């Protein structure tokens, strides 16, 4: 009855929709998001994950790509947080600029306790998702 009365006005429907989105959207981080480093929209300020430092290495035929000459440093900083969507977009850009070449992406991340994790290490032009 109460819920029905709240849903009886556009304001009530707006409030319910707003709260549903705000309560459920962060769940995506915990339940479905494949990139643990991507904490956007999950209200994870100052979380341990935010402290992770990653070293993204793109190599073309074994030679390391100098990202600083191809991407603004703000994007390199985001890549250094291990954000997959940025790394994959960088990979897509490199594949487009150097067609037909094998471009490998390896991501080495260290968490606050010093534990290391390696991700990728394969041709990002063939397998586009990390």
């Amino acid at each position: 009855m109460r819920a029905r009365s709240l849903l009886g006005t556009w304001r009530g429907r707006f409030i319910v929709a707003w709260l549903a989105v705000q309560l459920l959207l962060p769940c995506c981080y915990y339940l479905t998001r494949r990139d643990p480093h991507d904490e956007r929209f999950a209200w994870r300020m100052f979380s341990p994950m935010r402290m992770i430092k990653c070293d993204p290495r793109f190599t073309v035929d074994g030679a390391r790509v100098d990202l600083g000459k191809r991407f603004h440093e703000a994007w390199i900083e985001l890549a250094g947080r291990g954000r997959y969507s940025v790394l994959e977009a960088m990979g897509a850009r490199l594949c487009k600029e150097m067609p037909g070449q094998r471009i490998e992406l390896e991501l080495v991340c260290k968490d606050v306790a010093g534990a290391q994790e390696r991700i990728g290490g394969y041709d990002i032009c063939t397998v586009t998702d990390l």
Partner: protein
Amino acid sequence: MAKSRRDARRGAKSVPVTTPATEAPATDAPTAAPPAKARPAKPASSGARTSPDASFWSGFTVSPVKLLLVRFALFGVLAFDAYLQLSHAPRYGSGFNVGNLRLLDDLAPGRDAFAATELALTFLFAAFALGAGLRLVPLAALLYNWVYFSSQLDSYQHHYLVSLILILACFVPWRVPAADTGPRRSWALRLILVQLGVMYLWAVIAKLHGQWLDGTALGQQISTPWMRSAIERVGWPTAATMTVLLEVLLAVGVWNRRLWPIVAPLGIGFHVAIEKSGLEIGLFSYVMVGLYLLALPEGWLAAIRAEDARAWVARQAQRLAPGTIGAAVALGLAAIAVALLLALSPLVSAVVVALAVAVTLGGALALRTPGRATAHALGCALAALLVFACGRLSTEVPEYYKFWAGSSRRLGRLDETRVAYTRLLEVKPDSAPAHYYLGTYDLADHHDDDALAHFRAAQAIDARDPRAFVAEARWLESQGKPAEALAKAKAGLAGRPGDADARALVDHLTSIAPAIAPSPAP
């Protein structure tokens, strides 16, 4: 006819209330608000008006003085926050973008559009803080959300919060007429507080992690020495656990009026402490303090009589500028402020776009509401002057050009780099790096005299930076003047004895002309 419909709608939305007993629980009304003017209570038109669920939202009231305080503090902080984004503009338009919403990947602003938008937002937020142009809150929300969601370059989580708050702010009756002294009812303000509660709730869940609870993560994030030593007394795990418990309390209490006497000081203190912790979080703490003004118990604000202050300002404005002449004078002031901004601001292209939009809309508003034309125009004039003052007094504009020049240089965009360094010198003539890099570009173009002038300017400004000395020394060597070259290289090395380039050049020049002089020990 249309106007009357509009007025009727406005009356239904912007809701000065008489707090009828059926609409709000007793605990939800400002207890110390001045008595409302006698008005007929609106009949409850639906069950939504009377049910406890609905009245939790629609029955939420705040006093005018609190609304004015929140408006001034929140939009004032947002104005400064928008202005401080200017130096981030060179990140945008580099030819690569990933959106916060991927469907907006290709719609992100470029450098100029970003700068123009942030300037427009500065102007609009400043105007809102001063009570002008409040109908443009949806425009500001739209601009803000576009910039935020179209690029991950904005990584501040509090900007996500601001983008949400601005959407809700579109539904808040910010305008408080001078004659209206009754409490203001607003479901949107309640939803803003509940939104804060949701944010704290998820922040708690994020911290239920071993590396947080054992204090490791907290220990790595706090950099202020006095705060570190204070926390070390209680222990990092204890401080981390107390943070979680405090956030639980804030999650429950920030929207609960009965808990405000506890939650407001705790919340404000918490965010002031975060500000002092050395975290790089922009103006997040100030935004939160502005929002916490909403949770101040009404009794604490009883001493402030907003209507007296507003009535005094209105009387002075009427004396100063009665009627339409007043509006004309105020609009004239606004025009002068804008003209000054245009004439003297270094970010001309961005300023032109931002102000063209803001002034056109502001003017249209002023003309559309002649009764408030003076107030609108004065507010706009003050806001424009504020933007102008920020541009002249802050370091944001030099930073903008410095970052633009640096990123263009690293990306190999020579033409852009030259333009950026030239503009940097216009606003900051004592920039040694700008002189140095412009000197190298002039030298490459065989404009030797110009290059030397730049190198010497850089040397005079910063004798500890060896780059300009080394560059001139190399030029002198190329001109067949090894003795002068060695002297110059030595001067560079003296500024920074460990510099590898200067050291190598001194060694090289000494080796080809050993009779000139021995090199100094580094």
